[in-house]
């Protein structure tokens, strides 16, 4: 009697790409409680989809109060950095099949920044450090009538650090940043590097002085967490070391 039903279910599941995954999400709502708690969600999802799709499923079908940031959904805007299975990643670039869907997938806000609600943190200290390194081209003299020319070699010098999307995955993976949040953090240094080593820029010296601060590059302990965390594959620790070397030799 039960056999036909079972057969049907089996046939269906063989054809369907969907699997059941558990999302274990760190929830926090200051209007409800001062404590953050874990909440499990079961969802049927294609393992080739991304963690962000799972979060959408939760928000749209299970619990509309789940709060997280995302904008482009394609790894460009840097909105959805979060701690997935204990590692900082972009939810929109992490496939479910790549992070062992057999076990519950833990999702937490990035560390070291104040949690406002669920997965949303206050990014202000992060952007303050970014603004402090003057992330814009500084030049003197007349503006050229056409573009500012640069040789391919000069462009190559800082190519790696132009890839930053300011998602804060690196800065919020850094144990020195976790401690007191005063350290400039890898992202600010990467963005300073992008201009310090740009042949067209003239404020390299000034930016180096800013990073020579007591909370500047010298607080880096070379743990490589930032390089591991970067969703764009920037060699963050290397960039920091290059800034340190430029500070010591004053050649860049």
């Amino acid at each position, binding site marked *: 009697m039960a056999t036909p039903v079972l057969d049907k279910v089996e046939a269906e599941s063989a054809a369907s790409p969907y699997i059941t995954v558990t999302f274990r999400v760190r929830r926090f709502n200051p209007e409800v409680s001062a404590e953050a708690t874990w909440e499990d969600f079961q969802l049927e999802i294609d393992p080739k989809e991304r963690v962000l799709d799972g979060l959408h499923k939760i928000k749209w079908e299970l619990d509309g109060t789940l709060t997280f940031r995302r904008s482009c959904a394609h790894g460009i805007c840097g909105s959805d950095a979060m701690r997935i299975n204990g590692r900082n990643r972009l939810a929109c670039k992490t496939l479910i099949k790549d992070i062992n869907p057999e076990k519950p997938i833990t999702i937490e806000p990035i560390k070291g920044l104040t949690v406002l609600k669920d997965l949303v943190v206050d990014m202000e200290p992060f952007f303050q450090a970014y603004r402090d390194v*003057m992330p814009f081209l500084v030049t*003197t003299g007349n503006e050229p009538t056409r573009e500012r020319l640069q040789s391919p070699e000069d462009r190559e010098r800082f190519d790696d650090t132009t890839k930053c999307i300011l998602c804060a995955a690196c800065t919020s993976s850094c144990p020195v940043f976790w401690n007191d949040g005063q350290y400039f953090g890898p992202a600010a240094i990467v963005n300073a590097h992008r201009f310090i080593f740009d042949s067209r820029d003239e404020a390299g010296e000034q930016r180096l002085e800013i990073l*020579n601060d007591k909370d500047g590059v010298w607080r880096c302990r070379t743990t490589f967490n930032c390089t591991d965390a970067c969703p764009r594959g920037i060699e963050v620790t290397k960039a920091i070391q290059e800034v340190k070397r430029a500070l010591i030799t004053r050649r860049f």
Partner: protein
Amino acid sequence: MSADTTTATSGIGPVEGGAGTAYGVDNPAPVIEAPRKRTAKTPRSTRGNFEMAAWLFMRLSGIVLVVLVLGHLLIQLVLDGGVSKIGFAFVAGRWASPFWQIWDLLMLWLAMLHGGNGLRTVINDYAERDTTRFWLKMLLYTATVFTVLLGTLVIFTFDPNIR
């Protein structure tokens, strides 16, 4: 492009500031001050800054310590009968030579300052409250100065004939 021309007062170039913007002579775009702009009040160049010196010192002293500490361990613990040979006579014999006096003096100073600065970093990183941080560092500095001075005193005033 001549070198003596100054930057245009409005940072808006002809391209960005083209037609259609509400800004004009009577309504300029707000000035965006460069953060941490260098002014007369900001301290002069922080080159030779303490954190940089400390960082460099950790690496340089580390290199020298590799030789000093490993050599020390080898002599004290491995060669010539190992640790069992160490006694008053052994120490007295070695400190009779200025070479070993300088070796030990250098090792004492470098290891203490290296270890002390390393612990200063650890305290800076881990202490959460300013008062805790301050007192931990005071304790550290006191212990470091005391050990360095006492060790130096012993190396220089060591008397092999003491009884």
